[in-house]
């Protein structure tokens, strides 16, 4: 170990057998990804609020969760509850994203094109799935990478259970799609 690395002292979980260096890098990457995802959602919150207030609130909550996670990780709070909170909050966001891109969400408002003001007697678009763009795809990939990093920090037993549940979620999405229910 170089002297630089050995100088890093972390309040790592007792009993960890993983390299301190790798764990440090993993946590630092997770901090960056959580902050990036939080900022991305913060930027998107006003537009979603104008379109559909419920989605604006959702984005605000996501922002708060992801920035809180970044802060906790920055303070080296890597307890099991923090990691599980980080994993499942981001998994939930990813699931909502997928749902919003393949179907209209329950309660999603019908809207005029470009979210225009409605006019008396004018027709408008029925609710329909949102389009995908580079910005939201970037956020999704950041969140998935964040989930993978946080999973890697879990204890063995929790990691096994968590990845199993993730796999079930993935299979469910593929299954709903194949059955025609989701698409």
């Amino acid at each position, binding site marked *: 170990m170089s002297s630089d690395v050995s100088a890093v002292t972390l309040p790592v979980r007792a009993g960890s057998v*993983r390299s301190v260096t*790798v764990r440090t890098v*993993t946590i630092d990457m997770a901090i960056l990804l959580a902050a990036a995802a939080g900022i991305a959602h913060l930027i998107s919150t006003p537009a979603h609020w104008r379109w559909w207030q419920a989605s604006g609130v959702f984005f605000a909550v996501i922002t708060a969760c992801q920035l809180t996670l970044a802060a906790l990780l920055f303070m080296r709070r890597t307890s099991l509850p923090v990691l599980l909170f980080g994993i499942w909050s981001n*998994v939930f966001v*990813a*699931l909502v*994203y*997928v749902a919003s*891109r*393949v179907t209209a969400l329950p309660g999603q408002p*019908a809207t*005029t*094109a*470009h979210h*225009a*003001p*409605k*006019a*008396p*007697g*004018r*027709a*408008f*678009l*029925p609710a329909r*799935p949102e*389009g*995908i763009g580079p910005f939201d*795809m970037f956020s*999704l*990939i950041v969140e*998935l990478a964040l*989930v*993978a*990093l946080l*999973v*890697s*920090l879990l204890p063995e037993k929790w*990691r*096994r259970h968590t*990845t*199993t549940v*993730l*796999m079930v*979620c*993935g*299979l469910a*999405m*593929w299954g709903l*799609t194949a059955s025609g229910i*989701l*698409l």
Partner: protein
Amino acid sequence: MSLNRRDLLKTGVFAGAAVALPTARFVGADTAARMPESKLPKPFSLPFKQAPIAVPYRKDATCEYYKMDMMGGYAEIIPGFKSYVMGYNGIVPGPTIKARKGIQTVVRHCNQLDAVHPVLGYTPWTSVHLHGSGSLPQYDGYASDIAMPPGGVREDGTVCTNGEYKDYHYPNYQKARTLWYHDHGVHHTAENAYHGLVAQYHLHDAEEQTLGIPTSIYDPTMNGGLGGWKGEYDVALTVGDLMFQSDGNLLFSLDNQSGHWGDVIHVNGVPWPVMRVKRRKYRFRVLAASISRSFKFSLNDPTTAQKSYGTQYSYQIIGTDGGLMPAPVTVKSHRQLSGERYEIVVDFGAIFKGKAKGSRVVLNNTSPKNNLNYTNTHQVMAFEVVDDAYDTSVTRGNGNAVPAKLSAINDIMNLTPAMSVATRRLRLERSGGAWTINGTTWDKIIQSNYQFVEAAPTVGTVETWIIENSSGGWFHPLHIHLVDFKILSRNGQPPMPHERGPKDVVYTGENETVTLLVRFDSLGKYMVHCHNLVHEDHDMMTQFEVVGPAGEKGDDPMYAAVARDMEFEATDVL
């Protein structure tokens, strides 16, 4: 990090689904399997056809009334395959309406399309624009003034069970010209027009009927007294390009919102048709009804080598968007964009002189740059000569001449820069991923509740409009509603010979600046947009408002005549 192979695999199942499912839906919508070229018809193997002439529903001394049902259904465009199309009265392209100057037309357009497009999955609301007509604002096909199909959802959440209809009033006060009516519904114009909601509309006047050129003649006794038209040598050519999915349905791809280019060139809905012609002059009303493609037409001897052209023949251009030119122009090719109309006269007597019956010439397309081309997009249609005799009686519309002077009085072509009272610039550009005109999109118009206007010229005045396209990657056919204009210059040079007539669409090529003289004859808000319909839908459209000297305003395009539910149609006298 300590994810073992099994953990990675399990996590990957989730991550893969999260990324792949939205992407697959997005990509699937745009890149459905294209029909292989082996399934497409060979060029010049299918017979030419024309759209039928529309018959009025009724008429009186000052007006003719039509009823059009917009309907979806399946048509065999590629032999052996059924394609979902949408047409006026279920016909693609729709019936040609023929009108006489001074006799108004009212067309009741009923949206009876499917609630959801069965291939593309959108709701096909409609707005009908008569392109080339100085219609009142509420009858101009204002993009956001839409009619819903049966099953469409209204503002209050109720379903529009019966669909909606609207009566469009057309004044027919202008000079003889080739117009066309097509869909203009906000954000779905490209898909609606692509699937067939386009048709020609011919306005005739006394001057045009007495020049001795091939034309059509009105016969009041036809169709049980409702009137009809005869004119074998006055031929509509509606040219476009399509692409097909392997199941026969039309494939529509936005290509990053740049446009849509098909691999099948069609004329009047027939892929690369062959038309039998007599040894005489024909007048062709050429409408480029493509979504994005621009053409450079020429007449050549047929060759088998791809993109190799035989002898090139001259033809005469006698009319532009706004009607007859002051004098015919002889050319060997001309450039034409979506929305533009050119009336050309081809003398098959001269072309086929000394050639045997069955000889052919081909209308080719030496494509302007920045189009996507495929194996046979350089060919349009063929003409095959027959030896049939023809009626030489000019009085029946069978004119076989092109006089040296055409339109004796043409106010637009007589405009001079000295008449201009203002100069405005329109910048056509892509900004932040959006197509814009002076940085404005139709979204801005909507957000302003349709109040924002790019310009407010005074009625009766002439202005200089300078159209700028500083991009080397795109061309834009700019269409200004309501008006005819004269092209003064292109990059400081005189306009091309075929552009020296009254226009309402101008080719604004790569790195080009085009200067127009525009006269504003009536009040109201009207649209200006790119006629690459993909650009128009995304969202390259703004508006201007012609006002009176004291600020008087015209009718409101959104609210002066709204579409009504079809339940009222039976009792609403047309």
